[in-house]
């Protein structure tokens, strides 16, 4: 069956994030001076086939570990839900 995942890749805490700092500066320049911090990351949306939830979770863990995140500097967490194939076919 089809599974849909959203993978969030984040820089590990404590690693300087100049992109996030620059975005925070932009927000403050617009007057949002209560913004204390912005951390930039990546959102990856995956659609894939797996027999059951356990298999899908194991596959996601492996994909994150091998490619999607570099454990030296990043963490990855994800949300997984069953894909609605009927809805996709109607679209």
């Amino acid at each position, binding site marked *: 069956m089809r599974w849909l995942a959203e993978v969030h890749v984040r*820089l590990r805490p404590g*690693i*300087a994030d*100049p*992109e996030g700092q*620059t975005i925070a500066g932009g927000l403050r320049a617009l007057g949002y001076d209560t913004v204390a911090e912005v951390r930039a990351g*990546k959102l990856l949306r995956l659609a894939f086939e797996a027999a059951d939830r356990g298999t899908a979770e194991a596959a996601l863990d492996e994909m994150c570990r091998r*490619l*999607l995140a*570099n454990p*030296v*500097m990043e963490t990855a967490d994800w949300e997984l839900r069953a894909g609605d194939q009927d809805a996709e076919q109607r679209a």
Partner: protein
Amino acid sequence: MSRGPRVAVIVFPGTWSDRDFAHAASLLGWEARLVWHAETVLPDPDAVVLPGGFAHGDYLRTGAIARFSPAMRAVEAFAAAGGPVLGSCNGFQILTEAGILPGALLRNDHLEFRCEWQPLRVERAAGPWLGELHPGETIRLPISHGEGRYFADAAALDELERSARVVLRYADPAGTVNAAANPNGSLRSIAGIVNERGNVLGLMPHPERAMEDETGGSDGLRLLRSLDAWLVAQPAVAERRL
């Protein structure tokens, strides 16, 4: 020696320094073989170069896709057997992604792409890529990157220092290492490191762009020429080339 060293230069989609390395090889009397990343066998090289560029568009992370290119399995085996491997710029990023060298290269702390001549302090001068240099001297090589901020956790940095594997640091023209001379925010001003055995060098600067005084400097020629003497001192390699 019947011929100069044969150097395999790995070419990924998006590599841009492969021809500069081929030109450098011609100045050094080396035979450069450009090897497409999809190849699974290397052409019996004496050394391997991973050049700079933007392999696979640097999508996801620099080097993240390139490290799984088929040629990288052969490069990993070559490195594991003690073969000399040099990764410059994107090549350094690929080596860290592959786990052949520790750490990672992150976005420059100021977010700018920097393309300029950069003084470097030589911390260690040994092995196939550094033997012609002198510890403590200051050399000049071009840098050309947006993601060169070396990062590793404190324990990994301490281990690199303890084992004298930090070989190049960003410095000012007098050779002083300080924050102002650090062009990208690299931790401990690290510009280049070697693996435990010393046969694999990763560096952000571009030695292949510093080959002729007419174009700004020739310290890259001195660095790369180290390979010649090192190979001659390896009995197995010398015998093979007779």
